[in-house]
Structure formats: structure tokens, C-alpha cells
């Protein structure tokens, strides 16, 4: 029942049949995950990977094995973009449809795939071999345009490389051979680097410079829970995912909660368009991340941890699994870590399946529990009652890495870097119209202008700080500083030069939020659709000056009544551009004359009837002669 509101171009009706699945297969997949309803996302991902579809009969069978109702399974299967209730191709090509990709020739790359495969975006080939889709930002904005081909990443695509890839796939080559003929012989780290560049442009002192192995963890085992937490508190470390909550305080809340179990979860669901810093940490500092999680586990008394890895980063899963296995072998995970009796902690990797909202703490926990990725009602907060109802610490990848370094070098070492209120360094993922897109580890406190000089983006006309949920600023704000108190960001900095159409960017960002809203609450589910439609009116030149007030009022309602951070920030692309680029709006809006709305387009309204009746309008066709 699609209304076509969403960003994804409506999928065409399925052209291939449901593949019958052998009776025992679903049972076997469910059994792999202990017939546990909390592992529903893993079960459905497995079915999708193997059979490219979750058919109605599969819903019934999965439900019966996991003791759920069919509608509950359908609720999960229909929530995530990477799961499909209609048959998809054996190979699904997902082209990244971010605004940065659009500005990097995505259109031509798309045309090549469509031509070679003989299908349009949203379609599946009749033989069930290929599906072609658009997907929002996959975290490769420094090497756009990019695409996922099943679990393989293609980056820096050109029409030529796209053609070679599409033709090879059509000849029956596996996606892996697009990367290397001896893909399976490569280590997971080598595989990742063959697919994706790190583009580390500036290594800072904390994360991307030299990092001694497990020095923080070695210190932490000799400390009490309270001492560890005090060190993290005194360092001034704040969450690096965007919200900026004080990390030590979060750990202390969870540690002081008396419960049978505690959990530590790493939020590696880096979905904010333009953000890709965690991808580089996961590739280059996976041990540091696990070390940080292990320290957190020691601090709060957790025995189990989860790394929630976004579906788009599935290519990093083998690397993470290898790191976890290696650490178990070396006594750094599992029972009696570093020989300390009672220090037991292990981690599983939970794959996401294409849902930006799962970067929200509560939604991420819901997703880990095998539910649709919907935020939870607060209170209770996750530190009190989180994963499966137990106290849970959820931190960003970068936050855990910082924590491990703080335990090594001491709180004051970290505290002394940055500014008052924003301590330490921060990874910035910088992309868009600049010479050197990539990762910059910088202490807090640089101005936007300084950063632009560093990256070769001096001719920027607009900078999106913090991704779409952040702010778009103009040149008159480039003196402002990247700190929690001035311009806060989870790391994304997207640069646009003077040739870019601000309203096009805003419309794209609103369509992103429409696509990614979970739909739980009224204002976010509907308000964002209305905002997107209003921006379309501006782009078509069909807006009134009053529509500017309408945008502001509607944005206000959405921000104030939404249930979670998505709706509280989704109007930001509009509000920040209204504030910083007001002429963009006023230039294209026109007032009504004599109370008659120019915004109502009579010519397009009667066009269909003109064609059907094969005559022109007596009233509205001026050149009507009879």
C-alpha cells in the first residue's frame, strides 16, 4: 500500500516467484539461534541471505519455531530495509543514494547498472539474478559514489568501473571476485582495505596515532569498578555519537543499579549521513574498541556485550569476528580475563539490517532483542533497565576507544586536550566539496574555517555540521568552533560549494528522515512527510511567503512532541537553512494575488482531462479560438 512518500522509488511488483524452501531449512536456521525470539533479526537475516525473501509461509514457520505469532515476525521482517517480503535477486546491488553521491555522478553510475542489468532502480530481473536498489548513506561519502553488492563494497565508482562490475556480475562472477581473484585467501583486514579506503588524513594523539596493545585494560584489571569510573569521569569524556552524554556518569548509573546481570553494548550503527569515522576505527582499531568495552564491563559488572554493527558495514563482520576470536584465545575475552578470577566477559556481534533509527539507544536495544527498531519509552533509561530489562551501557565505538586510552594514559592527559567542556580529541569525517575528504582526528576547539583550510574546502558556501540532524551553516558562521557548547557534532562535516542547490539538499535530507522514521509516534511519522512536501512546493516555485511560517510552526510541533531524538532533530535541515540561508526560501516564494493562490496550478490540474476529452479549456486556455 505504498503511497510513494518514501525516498526509495517504489519497488515494482515482484517478477519472480517465491523459491520453495525445504521444510527442514527454516527449522535449522531457527535452531542455530536457539529458537530464541530475541535473535529474530539474525534468523531473518539468515533467511534473507539464503533465500532472498521472507515469504508468508516462512513467517508462519519462523513464528512457530520461536513461539511468536506470525504478525510479530512480520512486524520485524517489514521494518528493516534489508529484509524483504517479496522475492529479491540472488545478488542485490544497493547504490548509495546520499546527496554527496548524487553530487558525484551517481546518476550516470545508476544508468550504467540499469542498462547492463536491464532493470530500473527498485526492480528485480525476471530470472531472479539481480535486484537494483537505492539505499541511504552507507558511510562511504569520502569515496562516493559507492555501492553494496550483497556483502561486498564498491567505492569511488565511475561509469567505467560500474560497467566492468555490472558486466562481470552478469557473466556470473561472484561479488567477491570484483574485489580480488583470491578474495578468500586475504585476511579480513586485507579484504576490508581492498574494498574501502581509510583516508586517514590526520592522526591525532589519542586514537589514530600509535596505540600500545591493551595497556588500558592491563591497568583496569588492577582497579576497582569505582576507580575506573572515576578516571573516566575525571577525563571529561563525553559520548562521541552525537548526544554527548558524560560517559563516566552513564557508567556510574549502570554500575550502581543492582541486578542479576549487566550489559555493555557498542553502538556501531553509524547511520548519520556523512559520518564514517567509526568505520575507520572498526577497521584500524578493533582491538582498542573491544578493550574499551571490556574495561566498561569491568566497571559496571557486565558479563555479556554486544557490538551492534550496521547492516551496511557487514563487510567488517569477518574482521570483528576474527578479532573477538583472537582475544578469546589470548585470554582477553571469555572467562577469567587476564587471569583475574571472576572477570568474565564475552561479546557477540549483532548485525543490523538497514535502519538509521537503530542508532538511537532504545531502538538499538529493541533491535538487539529481536524486535522492530523502535525507541523505548523513557523512563526507564537503559542504564536502569535496558537490554532484556537489565542495566545496560550503550556507547559509541569512538567513546569506548577513548575510554581504553584514558585508562592507559590517565584522566588528566585526556582532560588537558581540547577546550573547557569538550575534552580530548574527536574524529571528524569530512566529505563533500573539498580536496582531501577523509578522517581527521583533531582536538576539540578548531573553528570550521581552520578545518576547511586543512581539508582544502576554502570555497565552501555551506557546511553541514553533524549531518542532517545537525546544522547547516553559512560563511558568516565559519568562525564558530567545533565543541559541544558551540557546534556539536557526532563527527560529520559535509561541505557544499556555491554551485549546490540548498533546497535540493534540504529536500534530500527530509526524504531521508521520512524514509528512516520508525513511524511509532504521530509527529515524526507524519510531520516529516508534510515538511518534505512543503519543501517540494518551494522547489517547484509553488510556495507562499506564509509557507515559511508554516515550516517553522510545523517544525516546532514535531520537535516538541516527538518521542525520540530522530523527530527532535529531523526539522533541523529546514530550520537551520531558514535561519542561515533565508534568501533561498524568499526568492522562490510568491504571495497570493487578490487572495487567489498561485500555488494552485490550474494548468497541471486540467491537463489530464484535456488529453482525455481531446479539447482545450474555454476558461483557462488563453489562446482558445472557436
Amino acid at each position, binding site marked *: 500500500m505504498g503511497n510513494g512518500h518514501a525516498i526509495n522509488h517504489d519497488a515494482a511488483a515482484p517478477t519472480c516467484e517465491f523459491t520453495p524452501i525445504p521444510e527442514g531449512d527454516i527449522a535449522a536456521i531457527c535452531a542455530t539461534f536457539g529458537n530464541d525470539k530475541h535473535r529474530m533479526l539474525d534468523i531473518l537475516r539468515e533467511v534473507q541471505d539464503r533465500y532472498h525473501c521472507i515469504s508468508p509461509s516462512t513467517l508462519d514457520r519462523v513464528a512457530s519455531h520461536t513461539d511468536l505469532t506470525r504478525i510479530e515476525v512480520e512486524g520485524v521482517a517489514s521494518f528493516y530495509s534489508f529484509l524483504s517480503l517479496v522475492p529479491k535477486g540472488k545478488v542485490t546491488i544497493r547504490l548509495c543514494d546520499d546527496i554527496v553521491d548524487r553530487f558525484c555522478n551517481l546518476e550516470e553510475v545508476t544508468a550504467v547498472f540499469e542498462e547492463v542489468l536491464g532493470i530500473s532502480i527498485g526492480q528485480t530481473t525476471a530470472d531472479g539474478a539481480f535486484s537494483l536498489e537505492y539505499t541511504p548513506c552507507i558511510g562511504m561519502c569520502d569515496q562516493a559514489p559507492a555501492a553494496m553488492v550483497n556483502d561486498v563494497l564498491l567505492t569511488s565508482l565511475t561509469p567505467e568501473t560500474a560497467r566492468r562490475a555490472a558486466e562481470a556480475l552478469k557473466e556470473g562472477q561472484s561479488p567477491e571476485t570484483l574485489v580480488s581473484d583470491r578474495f578468500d585467501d586475504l585476511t579480513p583486514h586485507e579484504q576490508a582495505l581492498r574494498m574501502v579506503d581509510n583516508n586517514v588524513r590526520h592522526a591525532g594523539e589519542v586514537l589514530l596515532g600509535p596505540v600500545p596493545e591493551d595497556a588500558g585494560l592491563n591497568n583496569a584489571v588492577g582497579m576497582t569498578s569505582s576507580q575506573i569510573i572515576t578516571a573516566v569521569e575525571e577525563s571529561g569524556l563525553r559520548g562521541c555519537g552525537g548526544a554527548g552524554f558524560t560517559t563516566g556518569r552513564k557508567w556510574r548509573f549502570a554500575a550502581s543499579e543492582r541486578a542479576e546481570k549487566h550489559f555493555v553494548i557498542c553502538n556501531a550503527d553509524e547511520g548519520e549521513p556523512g559520518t564514517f569515522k567509526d568505520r575507520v576505527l572498526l577497521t584500524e582499531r578493533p582491538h582498542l574498541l573491544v578493550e574499551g568495552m571490556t574495561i566498561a564491563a569491568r566497571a559496571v559488572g557486565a558479563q555479556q556485550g554486544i557490538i551492534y554493527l550496521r547492516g551496511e558495514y557487514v563487510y567488517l563482520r569477518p574482521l570483528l569476528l576474527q578479532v573477538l576470536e583472537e582475544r578469546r584465545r589470548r585470554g582477553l575475552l571469555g572467562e577469567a580475563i587476564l587471569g583475574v578470577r571472576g572477570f568474565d566477559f564475552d561479546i557477540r556481534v549483532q548485525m543490523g539490517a538497514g535502519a538509521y533509527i537503530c542508532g538511537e539507544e532504545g531502538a538499538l536495544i529493541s533491535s538487539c532483542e529481536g524486535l522492530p527498531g523502535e525507541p523505548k519509552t523513557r523512563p526507564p533509561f537503559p542504564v536502569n533497565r535496558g537490554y532484556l530489562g537489565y542495566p545496560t551501557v550503550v556507547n559509541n565505538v569512538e567513546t569506548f576507544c577513548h575510554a581504553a586510552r584514558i585508562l592507559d594514559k590517565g584522566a588528566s592527559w585526556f582532560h588537558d586536550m581540547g577546550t573547557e567542556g569538550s575534552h580530548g580529541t574527536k574524529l571528524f569525517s569530512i566529505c563533500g566539496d573539498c580536496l582531501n575528504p577523509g578522517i581527521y582526528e583533531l582536538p576539540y576547539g578548531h573553528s570550521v574555517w581552520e578545518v576547511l583550510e586543512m581539508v582544502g574546502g576554502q570555497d565552501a558556501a555551506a557546511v553541514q555540521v553533524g549531518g542532517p540532524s545537525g546544522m547547516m551553516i553559512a560563511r558568516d558562521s565559519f568562525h564558530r568552533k567545533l565543541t559541544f557548547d558551540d557546534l556539536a557534532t557526532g563527527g560529520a562535516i559535509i561541505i557544499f560549494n556555491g554551485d549546490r542547490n540548498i533546497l535540493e539538499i534540504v529536500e534530500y535530507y527530509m526524504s531521508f528522515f521520512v524514509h528512516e522514521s520508525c513511524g511509532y509516534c504521530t509527529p515524526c511519522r507524519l510531520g516529516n512527510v508534510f515538511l518534505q512536501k512543503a519543501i517540494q512546493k518551494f522547489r517547484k516555485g509553488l510556495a507562499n511567503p506564509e509557507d515559511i511560517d508554516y515550516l517553522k510552526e510545523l517544525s516546532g510541533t514535531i520537535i516538541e512532541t516527538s518521542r525520540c531524538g530522530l523527530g527532535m532533530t529531523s526539522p533541523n535541515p529546514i530550520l537551520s537553512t531558514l535561519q542561515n540561508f533565508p534568501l533561498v526560501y524568499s526568492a522562490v516564494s510568491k504571495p497570493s494575488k487578490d*487572495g*487567489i*493562490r498561485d500555488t494552485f496550478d490550474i494548468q497541471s*490540474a486540467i491537463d*489530464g482531462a484535456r488529453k482525455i*476529452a*481531446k479539447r482545450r*479549456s*474555454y*476558461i483557462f486556455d488563453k489562446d482558445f479560438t472557436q
Partner: protein
Amino acid sequence: MSDALPKARIATASLAGCFGCHMAILDIDERLIELMKLVDVDRSPLTDKKRFTQRCDIGIIEGGCCNEENVHVLHDFRRNCDVLIALGQCAIMGGLPAMRNAIMHSDAPLRECLDEAYITGKYIRNTTHNVPNDPALPLLLDEVYPCSQVVEIDYQIPGCAPSGDIIFDTLSKLLTGKFRGFEREIIKFD
């Protein structure tokens, strides 16, 4: 209500509706006499005047816009009336005619609608098997529009049809400059 006061001029029109809202004006019953002391009726189906004789204080619109003629009339009313009132659900939100907006989702929605109405519909007895297409028929719009999407509307009186009470109450207050919104108890959408 002194006789010395100049009477206000009102005009009315019925667009894509059932004329029920005009009938509802008669539900004002004996208060109509009181109301007529305040107004003269200009262009209106009630007077059978087809054109404005002069500028009006209030225009009352029943029905939404489903064809080009509706748009034309509505434009004319907006140009010739100081205050424009949308009377009833069709004028306010399209009403029953707007049901076609939600059932047309093919590539050629208008064609689908006309075919169903004149040719393929289960209960159609149309021996010509043609969609009427006399040059005198106004062209249909792609969908049915509420009046407020076509022109600026100053007030809306809800109901299907609005009760005599809400019509009388609103008009008499507007005419005497006392309108401050509706009593909640008389707001009805049916």
C-alpha cells in the same frame, strides 16, 4: 439591528457538493427573517442571479473544486467578496467527491475514474459505452481540491450539512463583528 445600518451584501455558490448546505441555510427557519434584515443577497442560486451586481461583503461557498468551472467561480468569488466562507465539509476538505482522490492510484487515475463511472462499473447502464464529452462540459481536475487550496478562505463552517444553528450563529456574529470562534458544542463534522 437598527434599520439605519447599511445592509451587508452576501453571495453564495454551490460547487462540487450536493446543494445540501444551501438547503441547510433554510434550517435557520424563522430566524431567516431576522437575518434578512441584515443582508441583501446578490449572486446566488437562491436569487438565481448568475453574476455579481456589485462587490459583496461575504461570499459563502458550498462544495469543493472538482472541475475547471468550480475553480473559475471560486476565483470570481474571491475577487468580488471581502470575506469568503467555506460552508460544509465538501468546501472545507473535499467531502464525498474527494473520495475519488483516494481510489485512483493507477498511472492514469482520471481515466480510471471516468471508465469506472461510465463504462466498466458493475451497475452502469450506459448503452453508448462512451464517457460524456460535450464541449459544454467543464474539464475535470486531476483531483478534488478543498477550497482553501485554491483561494484564501477566511472562515470555515463545518458540518454535513452544517446545522441551522451554526450557520445562523456564525453569520449573525460575523455581520455584527462579534465572531470569536465557535462554541465547541456546536462544532460537528457530520
